[in-house]
């Protein structure tokens, strides 16, 4: 039943419900695909028995006529989500062997809806990276290759394992997390869809913290509809997260519509930046045409503080990270470095051995910008600029209903090709502003570049308006007709 792995979640749901195939057959197909794709390095742990157990429950429930929304659907789970009894390491050596005695709210919601787990997905260490190269497990290799080349490419990051798994057809859908583009950039690099909802839609409880004021979970899948199906289950109020929004979850899937009549599409002029390949700007123009075709009217908008978003992010995110990652001290869980005499030396030795270079770099930056004498100059200043960036969007949404931009300033690059930290940070130039403003944003595939690599289009919606994002995403999906798949080499 290998053809099952080519189906979307909506198709699997339909086929399972109608009895065309069983949940067990679905789970076995994906388990086999996962086992055969080790060269992608997409999974840190494989959990075939978990997927089978959920499938068995789904098949039984189908017999008795009770169907949960995700019954029969096996998913990949980013290693940032705490999963009861299953290694949860955030791609870091410092959490080696950590088996949470609890389950994150998001994965718990997915399980209650009947989903099984195929395994945990590789990622940049603590979600700090845009290429998956900072993972303690080594980088994920993208299923995509440049035309006529065998060079290993990055699937993007930090949700790189998630993106690779969906694009390789070894998981029908996955969870990702997005702090400054970590769902959208990898989705763009691998020709799949991914949405980061409004900050607070998905509970952060049980997700390993990176930058708490920015971290949001979201789904990645082959289609916009599949993202809507997953997001409806993942989102929802959770009293265990103080920033969780106490609002009902809209029926995003039912309300999907690619009719954009009377919708205004904002095109921010500040996103036309130097050094972006012409193909990306051409795709952006094509995206405008597609949305016009769907009934929308483009309007030029201005987001004047756009160029300050990345430097703002690279103060706030490391500051929050340095604070959040203080908990890794070798006492309560994870790695402990032995052979040192004092408690202070044990902390320092454990953190030296357990964290990788990028994580250390960000903790250092964060510690510095929060330290006495520098706090106001860096951190407070960044929080003020963040307020201005948020205000830019609020003003823009008086003139438009949705914003269209490219997702990333390049297609996927080769592993090892980008070694300068600043150059790496620039990957998220289009993704970060929406993160700083807490807005829902999505990447959908738009087409291939001349090298045969996927490029994504990026939709940013107003607060709580995931529906507008999904609808515009659907309109693009229907018109782009993106069906390209990587040639199987793994």
């Amino acid at each position, binding site marked *: 039943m290998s053809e099952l792995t080519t189906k979307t979640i909506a198709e699997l749901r339909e086929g399972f419900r109608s009895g065309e195939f069983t949940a067990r057959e679905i789970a076995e197909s994906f388990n086999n695909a996962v086992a055969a794709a080790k060269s992608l390095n997409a999974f840190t742990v494989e959990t075939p028995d978990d997927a089978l157990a959920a499938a068995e429950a789904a098949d039984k429930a189908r017999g008795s006529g009770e169907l949960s929304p995700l019954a029969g659907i096996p998913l990949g789970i980013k290693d940032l989500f705490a999963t009861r009894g299953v290694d949860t390491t955030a791609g870091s050596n410092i959490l080696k*062997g*950590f*088996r*949470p*005695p609890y389950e994150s709210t998001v994965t718990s919601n997915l399980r209650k809806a009947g989903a099984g787990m195929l395994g945990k997905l590789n990622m940049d260490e603590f979600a700090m990276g845009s290429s998956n190269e900072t993972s303690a497990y080594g980088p994920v290799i993208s299923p995509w290759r440049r035309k006529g080349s065998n060079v290993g490419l990055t699937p993007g990051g930090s949700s790189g394992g998630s993106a690779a798994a969906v694009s390789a057809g070894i998981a029908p859908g996955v969870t990702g997390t997005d702090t400054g583009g970590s769902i959208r950039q990898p989705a763009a690099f691998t020709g799949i869809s991914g949405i980061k909802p*409004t*900050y*607070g839609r998905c509970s952060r409880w049980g997700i390993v913290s990176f930058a708490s004021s*920015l971290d949001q979970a979201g789904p990645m899948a082959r289609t916009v509809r599949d993202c809507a199906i997953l997001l409806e289950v993942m989102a929802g109020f959770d*009293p265990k997260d*103080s*920033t969780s*929004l*106490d609002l009902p979850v809209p029926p995003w899937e039912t309300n999907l519509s690619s009719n954009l009549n009377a919708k205004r599409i904002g095109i921010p002029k500040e996103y036309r930046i130097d050094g972006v390949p012409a193909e990306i700007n051409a795709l952006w123009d094509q995206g405008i045409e597609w949305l016009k075709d769907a009934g929308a009217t483009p309007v030029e908008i201005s987001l004047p503080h756009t160029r*300050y978003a990345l*430097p*703002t992010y*690279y*103060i706030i995110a490391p500051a929050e990270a*340095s604070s959040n990652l*203080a908990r890794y001290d070798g*006492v*309560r*869980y*994870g790695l*402990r470095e032995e052979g*040192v*005499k*004092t408690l*202070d*030396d*044990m*902390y*320092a030795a454990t*953190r*030296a051995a357990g*964290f990788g270079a990028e994580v*250390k*770099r960000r*903790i*250092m*930056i964060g*510690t*510095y910008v929060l*330290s006495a004498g520098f706090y106001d*100059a860096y951190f407070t*200043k*960044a*929080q*003020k*600029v*963040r*307020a*201005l960036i*948020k205000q830019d969007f609020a003003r823009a949404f008086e003139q438009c209903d949705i914003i269209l931009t490219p997702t990333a300033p390049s297609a996927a690059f080769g592993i090892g090709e980008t070694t300068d*930290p*600043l150059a790496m940070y620039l990957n998220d130039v289009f993704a970060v502003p929406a993160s*700083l403003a*807490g807005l829902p944003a999505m990447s959908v595939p738009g087409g291939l570049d001349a090298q045969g690599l996927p490029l994504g289009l990026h939709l940013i919606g107003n*607060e709580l308006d995931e529906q507008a994002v999904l609808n515009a995403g659907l309109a693009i999906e229907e018109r782009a007709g993106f069906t390209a798949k990587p040639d199987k080499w793994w």
Partner: protein
Amino acid sequence: MSVTHEQVRHIAKLARIAMSEEELGRLVPELNNILGWVEQLGEVNTDGVEPLTAVIEQKLRLRDDVVNDGNIRDEVLANAPEAQHGFFAVPKVIE
């Protein structure tokens, strides 16, 4: 502003990350590069702007002041590198 080797050593101490002289030396230009870049925020006029504290406006909730969890000592200790007599164990602090 730029950081010196001594300052980077101090930041590493604050961050509780052991670093060799060589590592510190490598980090000095890296951190200065990043700090030099973020300093462009100085160009932005933020007079009278309140620092953002909540990205999506909402009221902080209070929960009822009741015990709703607990009695899971063994679960809490299960992941400890070292646990003794129902406690986390650490290197001796007092001689």
